[in-house]
């Protein structure tokens, strides 16, 4: 399928009083039309910052994008003028944020907020936008949609607000939906509902999705491909089955080891990844995962590995990936 979005060597940094925070350090990935890409990693690893950079929503200053290209349908979004990027935002690329409780403007009715994008990008009148808003709310499963148009965000529950956010994002039929941890702030049953809605809409609308999460369980059933991020780098990328079946980066292995599974004995212990991610102001010279890695060697301390092809469509950034592949059985079974 045709490539929709191609990010090349994206770097984002923040100039703070304490120094330069290197949030994203040369990230490259692409999203095909209709593809779902999962972006996985722990808090502060650069997932959100990289997609916000794609949308050019990083506040500048203190943010800065010193290098990289974001090619969307052939245009470099980092180079186009403000008006052009605004015509892409919400129209071709839409975004759903993490916390539905704070992502809606508390003083505007939801009709106004959903209508905003419709009036802006599709040139609809207020009446047309209202009609469309009702349809959209019905699509995301809000009962009695028409009667709820003039409600304010505080009259909705968290799950309902996230549905409203999704309706807003879908309003202009975007080609790419960026979902920044859209289920993290919701409880588990609501999470499942939201994921179902997105899955259904993805199939019916054929849009591409970038789904950010730190929960591998959420992404397993949703994504075609997963990028694992750590300290502003993509450290492993593979199709979803390949990643779960053949993880070769110690960090990915750690992530897999730290999620509970239904099909294992109840006595199994969850293995946390010890330690903390590196300071993004003073980045280590070698591999950023060095301090926490159980498979490290001397080379890792001085040289940062680049992504290297380890299997078909599967790349990882680890000097010792073959060693990991051999020893990971023992690593994972230690928890049983």
């Amino acid at each position, binding site marked *: 399928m045709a490539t929709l979005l191609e990010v090349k060597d994206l770097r984002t940094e923040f100039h703070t009083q304490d120094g330069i925070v290197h949030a994203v350090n040369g990230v490259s990935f692409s999203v095909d039309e209709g593809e779902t890409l999962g972006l996985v990693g722990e808090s502060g690893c650069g997932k959100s910052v990289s997609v916000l950079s794609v*949308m050019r*929503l990083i506040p500048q*200053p203190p943010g800065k994008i010193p290098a990289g290209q974001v090619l969307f349908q052939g245009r470099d979004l980092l180079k186009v003028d*403000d008006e052009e*990027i*605004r*015509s*892409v*935002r*919400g*129209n071709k690329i*839409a*975004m759903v*944020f*993490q*916390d539905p409780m*704070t*992502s*809606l*403007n*508390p*003083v*505007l*009715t939801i009709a106004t907020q959903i209508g*905003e*994008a419709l009036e*802006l*990008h599709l040139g609809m009148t207020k009446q047309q936008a209202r009609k469309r808003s009702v*349809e959209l709310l*019905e*699509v995301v*499963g809000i*009962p*009695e949609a028409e*009667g*709820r148009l*003039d*409600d*304010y965000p505080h*009259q909705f529950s968290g799950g309902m607000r996230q549905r409203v*956010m999704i309706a*807003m994002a*879908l309003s202009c*039929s975007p080609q790419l939906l960026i979902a920044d941890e859209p289920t993290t702030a919701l409880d588990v049953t609501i999470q499942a509902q939201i994921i179902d809605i997105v899955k*259904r*809409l993805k199939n*019916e*609308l054929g849009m591409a999705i970038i789904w950010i999460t730190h929960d591998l369980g959420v992404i397993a059933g949703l994504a075609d491909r997963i990028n694992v991020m750590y300290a502003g780098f993509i450290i492993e990328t593979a199709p979803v089955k390949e990643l779960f079946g053949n993880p070769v980066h110690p960090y990915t292995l750690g992530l897999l080891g730290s999620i509970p599974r239904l099909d294992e004995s109840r006595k199994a212990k969850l293995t946390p990844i010890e330690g903390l991610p590196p300071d993004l102001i003073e980045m280590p010279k070698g591999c950023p995962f060095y301090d926490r890695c159980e498979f490290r060697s001397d080379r890792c301390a001085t040289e940062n590995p680049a992504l290297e092809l380890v299997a078909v469509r599967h790349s990882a950034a680890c000097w010792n990936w073959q060693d990991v592949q051999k020893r990971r059985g023992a690593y994972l079974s230690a928890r049983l």
Partner: protein
Amino acid sequence: MSQSIAAPTRPETVTPRVRSPQIQLARRLARNLPALLGAAVIVWVVIVALFAPVIAQYPYDQTNLNAVEQAPSAAHWFGTDALGRDMFSRVVWGARSAVFVILMVSIIDLALGIPFGAAAGYFGGWVDTLLMRVADILFAFPGLLFVFFIAATIKPGILAWAKSNGLSDLAKSGYLDYAVVILALGVVGWAGLARMVRAQVLSTKEREFVISAHAIGVPTWKVILRHILPNSLAPVIVALSMGMGDIALSEGYLSFLGIGLQPPAPSWGNILADNAGRYWRTFPQMIWLVLIPGVVLATVVFAFNFLGDGLNEALNPEISP
């Protein structure tokens, strides 16, 4: 989007009554007795100010030397002063002066404070630096002293300019005094408001729904007007309400000290000064001539403060006891 997407059908539910934030605010305010009283006093003063010519039985500057220093009576509700002017009429016209000055100064404060504050908070950079330095300078002086300074220095300048341009009639009329008072209070007042707006905008612009609005592609000016400002103005409304009391008081000070509105123009401040200056030796004779304008002014200041407190509690329900 294709029309084929099936909407899940749900049983009919009863939608709860829609309550806009404005209605909630009004309801919370209505439950607050001091705030309600304050609002009532303010409404009443505004009505008196609007209909001053109808309510006052005598012109505010009409002297009657056959009826000086009279006690309150049916003909003169608040008595008469040393020149036989009807005190009730003067106090009623004084309300008009006060309301006019409060309104104009508030308009200046808002017209300068909100755009400058919002621009400084949102864009930062040189606008921010400029605003903060100007505000620093204004705050470095004791406020009242600065008002005195402006009021005392700009008036002679304007007078000289008016005379040399054949506008001496304008200079002689009372309008110039109003302009001086309004200008002086406005110049000193707007920076505080701008700083407050700036601080609010600084925090509101980082909130998720603002980023969300940007992500929809809303133009910057619309994000500021529609998403940031309405969510930043709560403390500004409170400050403005309290500030209006301050403006009334400041106008009183200025007129009391003779650099505000000049007699015979009626201002509670200069009525107070007039009578207090004349009768303090003979205390407690004619005490009502001093008390009435003082009490009226104090009531109005209290009213604005009560309303401000009530608004503060209504806008921030989490802090109210």
